């Protein structure tokens, strides 16, 4: 009866095909499945292990039973329990002649053992034998094991057989042999380096499957060394072509796509080969555009190929047509309802904007949708895209968003990641120092424990150095605002240690500088901090030093200092601290307060943290003392490297230590005691900071002046970071030589078209216009729209020329638009005002921004065209464009000089006339020689009529797109010119 039940259950369980299991196994699985808790499950499994342990070592177990035991072992181990007692039985099973048992044995060992396990040595022999077997299934099973179990040492034992199998008659075996060889290559490239040519050979295999398998190792090889495989481009392209044209047998189709995985592999390889290689890329254009055209975008795998094509297009030498096709695909992805496709679309967009930044504009709405999507994966991908698109114009919006998200998540890994991104962006693009400090405060407050300590040092140095401009008022304003914000934050519970260090340092340095807060108020706050975070010695150290500075500044200013009682008790407590560092700081504080005003002034000059500290490396002030000692018969000091052989270790202590650990006993006599290493510093030689640990090392000296209290370890990196903050170099876009050429090539057709009939083509050919834009112009409008959409205001989001320093928001407007342009801008704004209603400050702005931005984006090439029109201006025009891309300032200067000559002014007046297309083509023809000198006025007045027309056109386009237009964002012009 019992058996019948079992049989019935077995049948019901659907265990077909000779994989039947015994009742015990079924019961085991069932009881585990029914287990209510982890503990219960563990109990069942442990019981099972006991049973197996007992039974597996019984003599004469029937093989079939043994096989089941092994499977049960595998199962037990999958549940997380140790089954190592049965490994040997699995190994034994691989020796069996029966195919089923052998395969089970191999399965078990590949799951149980790693390549360095002791038992491997028992298997290698079997594998060797099996690789030579007549039965190809045995060979396959062995190859499977080879992949997992053979390590660097045992590769030579099986390598000859594997190579032989590359010519096996069964394609399944050839395929697996190639992959095994690939695996060897991954594990130890040197051991198979002489066999690499086999991969090339197998690329020509008759069987497409084998060819496809060869692509895996080739991909790895080409990733490492592109140049030696350039000759494969043509063959690979023709393979891809044949695959895409369905020349492969039907059996390779998958969901109506011909061999999609092979296509994907090929595209990946071509991307590697074509990257930065114009000639190689040229060979690929046709096939890639065919694939994009033909690909069925309704199936998942079709989209996978499309995505891969975009990746390929974005990596190879740019081709405008392909970029356009790729942009179309991306917009399809982003419009899709599937989150997967949106994700791929965002990812692809991030790749493509490196080459053609302007395509992002079209997709702002979709991007913002993705940013607000509940799907975390999509959100993070979108942040990655935003990170790539960040520039000074949109940094505020993006970083704010990032911080909001950072606060909302718990995943500390990603929190760290996004915090570091925020810091990086803020350092690189900060529009003002005030904003930078506020942003850093937020980052520190919410993720302070996760960010690098250097970030804190950077912030301190920024506050100390100010804006890098000679504007003392702005600097002190920044400092007071920093002090104020810190005094506000300081009361909050559980601030991260790093942040507290910054707070203490800033309060100590600048807390009383502007006279707004009294010394007792600040010191009280500092004492509170030291008390509240009494377990954190670093914070306490910072707090004590800050106290010392404040007292020093007070006394130096001639005021009477009464130490607060809480402060006194703090110092008392610390002077008895276990930490010598804290003790020293406390004693220094006490000593300092007893000095007279002059001494204090020279020890602790106010606001001197940025000043260079001259360190007398030779300690010349000790010369007389040394001389005296020598005269009294002391031994002269011998430099470390001149000292005897074993004295090559840096200092006495470590030397002794090494001696002790290296030799148990020393048999030679001890040297005479050496004169003690001279005290390297006397505190008085470092007037600005007692926190400074003097290290007589040249590289350090150069950087000490920045923030004296920064620990020496990070100082060199700090310097690097801050450079980024001040100069705000944008990230490099696509490699410049290729990008400049690409822009020039793509401009040609556009010029032709637009010259024929500019006004009618503007709107019908937006893509070409996008393509014609200089790649150097970073993502630009996209952010502005984003910003506008999020905040409704355009004033915030002005683009800042990269060569300008931070701060001085007021000067910005003047800086970015040179005199002639401003008139046009205002003119343009007026026109827009008359024609469009004021914008509703909501998301709809986006759409209208797209519209308005599309027109200005035409400009660069129009400038070019206008410049080229009068033939004698050609060179000037080119210069102009070149200057454009660098900085408006240069532009302005240049314009002034060129304005003297007729042709120069003609050339210049065109860019200055901003976004007006008709004006340029018409005007530059008609009045090449006429309007010079007052370029600012002439184009402005002339542009009125055409501007109206242009605005009308814009308006109609806007209506087509179904959005309400708003005022023109004047910043757009800046983008065009710089």
């Amino acid at each position, binding site marked *: 009866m019992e058996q019948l039940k079992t049989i019935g259950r077995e049948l019901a369980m659907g265990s077909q*095909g000779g994989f039947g299991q015994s009742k015990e196994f079924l019961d085991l699985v069932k009881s585990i499945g029914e287990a209510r808790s982890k503990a219960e499950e563990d109990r069942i499994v442990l019981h099972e292990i006991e049973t197996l342990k007992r039974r597996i070592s019984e003599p004469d177990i029937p093989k079939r039973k043994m096989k089941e035991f092994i499977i049960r072992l595998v199962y037990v181990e999958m549940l997380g329990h140790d089954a190592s007692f049965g490994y040997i039985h699995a190994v034994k099973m691989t020796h069996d002649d*029966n195919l089923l048992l052998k395969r089970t044995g191999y399965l078990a060992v590949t799951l149980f053992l790693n390549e360095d396990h002791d038992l491997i040595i028992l298997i290698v022999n079997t594998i060797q034998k099996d690789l030579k077997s007549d039965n190809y299934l045995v060979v396959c099973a062995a190859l499977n094991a080879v992949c997992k179990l053979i390590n660097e040492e045992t590769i030579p034992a099986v390598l000859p057989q594997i190579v032989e199998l590359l010519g096996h008659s069964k394609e399944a075996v050839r*395929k697996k042999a190639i992959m095994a060889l690939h695996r060897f290559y991954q594990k130890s490239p040197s051991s198979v380096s002489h066999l690499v040519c086999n991969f090339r050979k197998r690329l020509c295999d008759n069987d497409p499957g084998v060819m496809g398998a060869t692509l895996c190792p080739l991909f790895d090889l080409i990733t490492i060394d592109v140049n030696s495989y350039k000759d494969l481009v043509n063959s690979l392209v023709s393979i891809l072509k044949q695959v895409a044209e369905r020349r492969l047998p039907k*059996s390779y189709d998958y969901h109506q796509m011909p061999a999609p995985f092979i296509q994907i592999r090929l595209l990946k390889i071509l991307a590697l080969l074509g990257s930065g290689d114009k000639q190689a890329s040229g060979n690929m254009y046709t096939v890639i555009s065919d694939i994009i055209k033909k690909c069925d975008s309704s199936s*998942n795998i079709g989209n*996978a190929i499309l995505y891969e094509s975009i990746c390929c297009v974005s990596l190879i030498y740019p081709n405008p047509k392909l970029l356009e096709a790729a942009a179309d695909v991306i917009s399809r992805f982003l419009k899709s309802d599937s989150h997967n496709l949106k994700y791929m679309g965002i990812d692809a967009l991030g790749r493509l904007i490196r080459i053609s930044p302007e395509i992002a504009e079209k997709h702002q709405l979709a991007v913002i949708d993705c940013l607000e999507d509940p799907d975390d994966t999509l959100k*993070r991908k979108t942040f990655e895209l935003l990170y790539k698109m960040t520039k000074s114009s949109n940094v505020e919006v993006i970083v704010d968003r990032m911080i909001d998200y950072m606060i909302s998540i718990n*995943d500390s890994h990603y929190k760290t990641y996004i915090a570091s991104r925020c810091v990086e962006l803020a350092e690189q693009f900060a529009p003002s120092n005030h904003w930078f400090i506020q942003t850093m405060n937020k980052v520190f407050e919410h993720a302070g424990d996760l960010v690098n300590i250097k970030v804190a040092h950077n912030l301190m140095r920024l506050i100390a150095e100010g804006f890098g401009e000679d504007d003392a008022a702005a600097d002190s304003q920044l400092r007071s605002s920093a002090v104020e914000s810190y005094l506000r934050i300081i009361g909050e519970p559980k601030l991260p240690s790093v942040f507290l260090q910054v707070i203490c340092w800033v309060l100590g340095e600048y807390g009383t500088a502007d006279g707004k807060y009294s010394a007792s108020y600040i010191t009280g706050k500092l004492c509170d901090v030291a008390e509240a975070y009494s377990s954190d010695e670093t914070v306490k150290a910072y707090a004590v030093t800050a106290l010392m500075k404040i007292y020093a500044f007070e006394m130096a200013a001639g005021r009477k200092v009464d130490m607060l009682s809480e402060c006194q008790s703090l110092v008392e407590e610390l002077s008895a601290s276990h930490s010598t560092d804290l003790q020293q700081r406390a004693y220094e504080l006490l000593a300092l307060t007893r000095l007279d005003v002059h001494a204090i002034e020279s020890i602790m000059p106010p606001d001197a943290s940025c000043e260079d500290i001259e360190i007398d490396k030779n300690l010349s002030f000790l010369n007389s003392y040394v001389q005296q000692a020598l005269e009294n018969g002391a031994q002269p000091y011998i430099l470390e490297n001149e000292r005897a052989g074993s004295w090559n270790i840096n200092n006495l202590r470590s030397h002794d230590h090494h001696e002790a650990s290296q030799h148990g006993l020393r048999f030679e006599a001890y040297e005479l005691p050496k004169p003690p290493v001279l005290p390297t510093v006397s505190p008085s030689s470092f007037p600005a900071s007692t926190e400074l640990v003097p290290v007589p090392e040249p590289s350090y000296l150069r950087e000490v002046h920045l923030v004296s209290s920064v620990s020496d370890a990070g100082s060199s990196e700090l310097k690097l970071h801050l450079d980024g903050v001040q100069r705000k170099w944008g990230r490099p876009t696509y490699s410049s030589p290729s990008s400049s050429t690409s822009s020039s090539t793509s401009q040609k057709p556009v010029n032709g078209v637009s010259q024929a009939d500019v006004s009618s083509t503007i709107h019908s050919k937006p893509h070409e216009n996008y393509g014609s834009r200089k790649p150097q112009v970073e993502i630009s409008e996209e952010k502005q729209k984003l910003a506008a959409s999020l905040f409704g205001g355009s004033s915030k989001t002005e683009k800042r020329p990269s060569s300008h320093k931070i701060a001085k928001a007021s000067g910005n407007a003047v800086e970015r638009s040179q005199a002639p342009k401003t008139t046009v801008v205002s003119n343009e704004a007026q026109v827009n005002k008359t024609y469009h209603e004021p914008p509703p400050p909501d998301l709809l702005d986006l759409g209208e921004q797209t519209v308005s931005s599309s027109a200005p984006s035409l400009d660069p090439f129009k400038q070019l065209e206008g410049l080229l029109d009068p033939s004698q201006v050609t060179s000037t025009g080119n210069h102009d464009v070149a200057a454009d891309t660098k900085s408006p300032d240069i532009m302005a200067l240049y314009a002034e000089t060129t304005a003297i000559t007729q042709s120069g002014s003609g050339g210049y007046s065109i860019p200055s006339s901003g976004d007006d297309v008709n004006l340029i083509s018409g005007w530059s023809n008609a009045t090449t020689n006429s309007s010079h000198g007052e370029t600012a006025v002439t184009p402005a007045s002339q542009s009125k009529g055409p501007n109206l027309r242009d605005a009308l056109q814009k308006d109609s386009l806007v209506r087509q797109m179904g959005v309400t237009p708003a005022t023109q964002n004047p910043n757009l012009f800046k983008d065009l010119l710089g």
Partner: protein
Amino acid sequence: MIQSVLVMNTQGKPRLAKFYDFQPVEKQQELMRSVFSVLCSRAGSVSSFVDTESIFGPDTRLVYKHYATLYFVVIFDSSENELAMADLIQVFVETLDKCFKNVCELDVVFNYSKIHTVLDEIIFGGQVLETSSTEVMKAIEEISKLETASNAINLVPKSVSGWGTR
């Protein structure tokens, strides 16, 4: 390269775990637990991709699909295409479906070694080997045939005699 293929049910019980780079048993458990905790927190209509760098280290991606009571998970690096990996899961499941006629969780549980055989025909040493479920089925059938043949010689007599004694 594909680093790992996991199948687990909606309660987090592992049904299949294949790591193409060796991981010790404890580590495997830990990885599977973290994967499960990520997966079960995701809503139904979101993308199949998960950011798993915190679990599997840098340059790793995870694609999963949810079929009935099972999660199928593939972990791989940047040399693979996410959408293609999603389709690879599809291939795997399609093949299982052909293998078992309407595959369900129980089939996966009780045919443990067969599932491994199927997977080994699709992914070999961390690389995609075959993506046509028909081809995979052919190979599986051939293996089954040969195995039953060798079974017939060695095992069937015993089991027959076993039947006799019951």
